Structures are given as C-alpha cells and as structure tokens.
C-alpha cells in the first residue's frame, strides 16, 4: 500500500459512483480548485465520498476533513497526507 497514490481521476470515479454527477457540471473540466458546492456536491455527498475513500484505501480521515476540504485539491491533499502517514510505519 505504501506506493498507492490518490489522484483526481480516483476522486472523480468515487464521486460518480457514490453520489452521481450534476448534469450541468463537467467533472472532466478544470475542477481542481472549484468548490464542491459549485460542482453540485453537498455535505452528504462528501460524507458518502469520504466513506468510500476510507474503505477503499483503508484509512480514517479526520472529522474536519469534510468541513475543511472545500475543493478537490484540498481533499486530494488530505487523502495523500493520510496515505503517506499510513505508509510510514510500513516503511519503518
């Protein structure tokens, strides 16, 4: 698991699977710094999405990730930080 990365493509896939996609939003456009709300995802969709990320990547995100990570970039960073943290003991 140490080499596993979490990419924008992964995030988009999980968003579509868990919460669908707003017909008026192009998820394949330049969305990294758009707010989730603009992309049509409210708190519940993000809870579902984070739950799926946690299961798939076997991590536990802090409660504040959902309220703090307002954009795909912020969520990618948060998940990546967790993956790095989870990897550390394995490397040691």
């Amino acid at each position, binding site marked *: 698991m140490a080499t596993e990365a979490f990419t924008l493509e992964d995030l988009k896939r999980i968003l579509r699977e868990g*919460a*669908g996609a707003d017909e008026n939003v192009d998820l394949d456009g330049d969305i990294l710094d758009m707010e989730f709300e603009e992309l049509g995802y409210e708190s519940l*969709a993000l809870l*579902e999405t984070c739950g799926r990320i946690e299961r798939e990547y076997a991590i536990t995100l802090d409660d504040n990730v959902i309220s703090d990570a307002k954009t795909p970039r912020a969520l990618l960073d948060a998940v990546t930080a967790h993956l790095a943290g989870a990897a550390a003991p394995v490397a040691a």
Partner: protein
Amino acid sequence: MTTPRVVVTGLGIAAPNGLGTEEYWAATRAGKTGISRITRFDPAQYPAKLAGEVPGFSAADHLPSRLLAQTDHMTRLALVATDWALEDAGVDPKALPEYSMGVVTASSSGGFEFGQGELQKLWSQGSQHVSAYQSFAWFYAVNSGQISIRNGMKGPSGVVVSDQAGGLDALAQARRQIRKGTALIVSGSIDASICPWGWVAQLAGGRLSTSEAADRAYLPFDEAAAGHVPGEGGAILILEDEQAALARGAEVYGEIAGYGATFDPAPGSGREPGLRKAIEVALADAGVDASDVDVVFADAAAVPELDRIEAEAINAVFGPQGVPVTAPKTMTGRLYSGAAPLDVATALLAIREGLIPATTHVEPDPGHDLDLVCGQPRTSDLRTALILARGHGGFNAALVVRAA
C-alpha cells in the same frame, strides 16, 4: 363559512400493467394483466413466484444521477409520478408560493430494497461499509421529503403508515390540509418492496398466493381465492382547493367527497369488523346515500375470510347485488400503500369515460352475492364511486369520489 371542496387535478401513475396514465388506462380497460414471474430476483426457491412489476421504467431517463445515488426504486417511481401528475395538472410548482404546496404520502415498508443492500453490507462487511444515504433512503418519510425538496414545496406535509389502508388515509389527510388553507397537496403513494428481503417478510404475513399461473393466482371473491399477488407502484394525485383550481382554469377529474376510517375490534371480541362503519362514515361525510353510489372499488384481499367480511359489509350498506363492484387490482396485484391511490385514480378515469373496468379472471362465488363486474368492462353513467382499502391488522378506510 362553507368547507372548501377538494378536487383532483392531476394524476401520475406507475402500475404493473402500464407506466403512465395513458398506458395504464388502456391496459386496464382492455383487461391486460401486469402479473408475471418475478424478474428482479430469482424467485425459484420461494413458495410465491409471481408479482406485478412496473414495466419499462428507466429512472436515469427521468432523474438526475445525483438523485439516483440516494434513492430506492420506490422513491424514483414516486418522484417521476409526481412530475407527471404536476404536468397533468398544469402546475408549475416554481411559479407558486412555496408554503401554499405540501406533500402527504402513504408508505408501508419504506425503501426496503435499499435497506436490504445496506443491511447486507453491515452484516457481511462491517458497519463502515454502510452508505451515508441509509440514514433516510429506506425510511417511511423519504418520498414526502424528496418530493418536497425536488419541487420546492414547504407547506404542511406528512406521511401515514396503515398498511394498505394508508393510501386512503393519506388522501384524507391531504384534503384536511387543503381545507385548513393550503392550496395544493401532492398526495397518494407509490410502494415497492419486491426484493428478496421484502419477499420473505411478505411471505411471513401468510397471505401470498402460491399459484404459478398469472391468471389463477389472484382471485378475490372467487371460490378459488387463495391469497394475493403483491405488486409495486401506485399513483400520485394532485389535490387542490376547488376554487383555486377553477381560478387557474384547471381541468378537474373529480372531487374527494367523503372519507371514513375504522379499526377492527381485537381478535376474539365477537364484535363486527369495522369496514361497514367506515363505509357509512364516508357516505355521510360525502353527503350521499348508498343509492347514489354507482360503483365500488373493492379492497379484494382474496383471502376467503376477508372476502366474506368485505362482501358482507358492502351488502349491509347497499343490499345484495345492490351496486356494481370491481377490483381492477386483479391486473396489478396488491400494491400495498400504492393500491388505494391507484384505485382512486382508476375510479376518476372510469367516471370520466363512463366505463367500469373489470375484475379479471374471477368467477364470482355466488355465496358473496355481489354484482361483481367480471370479464368485460361495463359501460355505465358514473358520478359517484366508493373506494375501499384494508390494512393488515384491522385497518379499514373508505373514500368517496364524485364527478366534478
């Protein structure tokens, strides 16, 4: 102050023998059944294998994917049926004041199929696998909530659960809210629990037919009656204050004229079951005599004892062979809380066309002494119809509709 009349101005139908009002009514007047072997799961291992499944419904054609992720099958049907009912009524909810519109639906078992999926994840994989949407997607209030959100309706709303009788209880509650001053209520019910978990729970109720022949499985008032076939679907109706409806030039299907509800006495009490009383209350509420009623849409349990009780109640009020009785639900199966709203919609369509749809495949037991409309639909000048519904445990409801 006179009590405002409450009228039906829109219908949205999702039934096993037809999706949409036009298809459903064409099938119903032609006696076309929607009952067949279950396709949603393999029923081979279960004693009952037939159901009425709504054909040709592709939710993705009608609803955004954001909603699909969080909804059970029955909620999707209900949202689409609501869209159709509003369109039929010529109502654009965005153009009306938010608090002037409410939603009152019935439910029986909620989003049971969604619930099965999440229970399975919980017990086979662990609690962290349960969806965030489980907190509401399965519960009884979900259709009223989702309909209100999709259509921006902020007025008085509610959900009633009284098994199959609930469909009429919801319409009565909707009428109550309109009489108290809300202009429009979306009401009725769509129900579905044709999933293995729902099937096992229904089997436990002991009233399912185990026949494997679609034309012999659900035979109310027949000597061969041996239980019912469950179905899914129902109808969403738009109810409005008559003055408001007429003021906007709406086309009116008919009036919700009277309602009565009772509960059967405790088993072993020796007292009479409550259905007759419910009918009498509904007729009095509508201000009509038994002789004014042109047709009765029966509950049609197809359990011999329950058929006898229903026939006796009808005969006690109308006299033997005293009124045409029909059960078009022989073509759809029993739709739980969706059944009675569909019967109300059917009654309104019947009144409009002057045609009583038939009870299919039934050879009436002469012992019941009912004028059961069988085989072919019957042409008749219809003004007033009585719809009956009963729920497991002893719930009785009766509703009178009248031509506009």
